[in-house]
């Protein structure tokens, strides 16, 4: 216990310059004493806070973090704190999924006149943190109860792996007329010159057909898993000229998001939608976009089975049933395998930044090393940067060579988006982007 008595919590406070910083200043000038445990980091506005800052604070030794800004309606920049609030709502959901100790992260609105409130907040947070104890590393894993939750499957007779099948022959979907119609359409488009390249599925993987006679390379079967929209932003592909792109309903959602974010011009491509009966992936069980809705033409198996909206979050159940420490242990174990290959990033159509945050080194925001710290920071930030943007194509999960169930992170944020904001990325072309917008009604019951 003596260690506890000597423990002085380190509280890092990210505060906005115009309200909370002034409030803290007021506390000082009016001689209100508050614990010296707090280290203030002044920002122009809470809207500036990216969550890698908060993670960084914990990485470098903070025991608790306080984020504070102007009251809604009082933001010096009009709406910065509204944007921040929306992000905080989503970020807390992500942290809950990760098993993070939400007791250590606090949000408040403190105005320039509220010196007392600052004093109170800092006092309470300090005492609370003192009771919680030090936070030795970001990914503190609790003892036995977390780690035993998931044991390995027995070594005898594991599931046979699919192995590296290189599909020599196409597997026709029963009753499908998709592939012939697809090839004919592409032959015509290329011959008449209205597109210069068809981005489609080939036997081995994505193919880029530039000549009408080569359309035989195109296939349509239950191995057509890739989300081809990722190629629309790659410069080697753009250099080939106006594309026709083959999309499933799930892939098409990415087109809507990309267009909303001004990354593509829908008019500069020809979209061939393939109605799909399902590819046997986990996402297919709860899919309600079997038929692409905004394509220039649709072909393939048009018979669809009913959508099951209620079951969409089923995969999260086991995780949410665990106590926070158990969730943290699960993710620690998963991320231990991460090798930072960035396959998850490269297959994602939404990860189109010219230079990714993890590649910046002035300063280093996310450590590129495949350590516990580096892996957690990467996956948290990537998941969060996709909040409200991820369309659930699950390519990241399929691409991960070490089998991390990344879709759980995306699902938890998609669930938060739907439950809090009735929002689904890539469904409604008229909807405002989730993170780019805010509402005066966004719930803030967690903000003091």
């Amino acid at each position: 216990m003596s260690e506890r008595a000597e423990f002085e919590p380190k509280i890092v406070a990210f505060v906005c310059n115009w309200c909370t910083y002034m409030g803290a200043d007021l506390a000082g000038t009016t001689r209100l004493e508050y614990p010296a445990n707090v280290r203030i980091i002044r920002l122009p506005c809470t809207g500036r806070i990216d969550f890698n800052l908060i993670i960084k604070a914990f990485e470098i030794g903070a025991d608790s973090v306080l984020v504070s800004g102007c009251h809604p309606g009082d933001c010096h920049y009009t709406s910065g704190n509204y944007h921040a609030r929306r992000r905080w709502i989503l970020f807390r959901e992500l942290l809950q999924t990760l098993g993070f100790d939400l007791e250590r992260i606090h949000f408040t609105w403190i105005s320039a006149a509220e010196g007392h409130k600052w004093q109170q907040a800092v006092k309470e947070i300090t005492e609370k943190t003192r009771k919680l104890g030090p936070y030795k590393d970001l990914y503190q894993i609790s003892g036995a109860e977390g780690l035993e939750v998931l044991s390995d499957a027995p070594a005898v007779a594991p599931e046979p792996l699919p192995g590296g099948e290189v599909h020599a022959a196409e597997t026709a979907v029963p009753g499908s007329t998709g592939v012939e119609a697809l090839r004919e359409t592409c032959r015509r488009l290329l011959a008449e010159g209205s597109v210069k390249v068809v981005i489609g599925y080939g036997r081995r993987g994505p193919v880029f057909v530039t000549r009408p006679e080569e359309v035989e390379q195109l296939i349509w079967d239950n191995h057509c898993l890739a989300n081809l929209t990722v190629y629309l932003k790659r410069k080697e592909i753009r250099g080939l000229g106006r594309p026709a792109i083959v999309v499933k309903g799930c892939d098409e959602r990415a087109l809507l998001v990309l267009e909303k974010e001004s990354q593509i011009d829908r008019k500069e491509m020809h979209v061939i939608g393939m109605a799909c009966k399902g590819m046997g992936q986990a996402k297919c069980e709860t899919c309600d976009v079997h038929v692409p809705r905004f394509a220039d033409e649709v072909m393939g198996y048009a018979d669809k089975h009913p959508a099951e909206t209620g079951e969409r979050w089923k995969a999260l159940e086991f995780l949410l049933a665990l106590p926070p420490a158990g969730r943290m242990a699960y993710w620690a174990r998963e991320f231990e395998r991460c090798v930072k290959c960035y396959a998850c990033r490269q297959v994602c159509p939404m990860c189109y930044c010219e230079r990714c945050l993890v590649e910046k080194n002035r300063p280093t925001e996310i450590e590129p090393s495949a350590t516990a710290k580096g892996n957690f920071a990467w996956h948290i930030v990537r998941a969060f940067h996709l909040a409200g943007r991820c369309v659930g194509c699950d390519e990241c999960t399929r691409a991960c060579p070490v089998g991390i169930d990344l879709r759980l992170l995306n699902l938890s944020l998609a669930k938060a988006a739907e439950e809090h904001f009735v929002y689904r990325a890539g469904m409604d072309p008229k909807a405002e982007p989730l993170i780019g917008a805010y509402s005066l009604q966004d719930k803030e019951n967690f903000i003091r």
Partner: protein
Amino acid sequence: MSATISQQALRELVTEWIRQGKRVAGPRQVKPGCVFYAPLESSAQLALAGFIRPANSVKEFIFPKHEELYGYRIAGNGIELIEAKQPAGEQVLIAARPCDAASIPILDHVFNWDYKDELYNLRRQLTTVVTLACTAHDDACFCTSVGLGPAAERGSDAMLLELGDGEYEVRCLTEKGEALLGGKVQASERVASVSAGPEKRFDAEAVRAFVKEHFDSPFWPAQTLACLGCGACAYTCPTCHCFDIVDEGNIERGVRARNWDSCQFAMFTLHASGHNPRPNQPSRQRQRIDHKFHVYPEKFGEILCTGCGNCTRNCPVGMGVLSVLAEIDHAQHIRTRPDEGH
């Protein structure tokens, strides 16, 4: 005269090694459908059947994905360097595949090219490799095209060969293998039959010639457009060894570490001036094939590839080197294969 061991006895050995404090790693089903080489906490975790090969390679046990080279402490304008912990503790890689074991002597060349990388060498010396010969292969395997095979002995200290009834023939190939397994096996007359392995998919010499002569060919863009530039192939490859060196820490102290890196990343060869010798994915893919099938053989006499197929299996878009090599083969009309699917 040969030697055999039962599966049960083998697992008991694994238990014993773990008890002795050795670090034991082997194929392990970490979750349904995912078998990886991973440290074993108990012999029950060792997966011996039901899969072609683990999705990763054994290189991480000799060349870790993140390795601290040394630490430093900053005090005023003085620096104190803190030596890295010297690799210690014996290590056993059990049930490695021949294509993994072979990668180790191949990597020895580059890690000892004039400058001897002691971190690598010490770990290597502390490791005993017990290989399990393959009885099956899939379409991604091509060990036979690079001079190896389902029971290739290169890099193995001992080899286990399935006899089909829960018993394994044991061949101790080196002193280390003998030290580990000698005396723990039963004398026997049984000799395992070795499967033929995959059919040869290309001629490595012809590939080398092609790559050397066709640097500027439109072949590269045509064949590599699908590549998304991730590191899945390089990081699961037994022989890829490119790395980056970074400083990580705070204003008081930190470590200088090396991390795996991949020539497929866009910034891999980016100069500070902004110039990039390999500014697009085709040039980076070309480098991969060039390095493995032309440069490394020219420098060290061995192909930097063991035909394990991990690159193909792990590639999100189904590429990997085999597809490109098969296309080179096709382009060169070296081997006519009328029954080819492509």
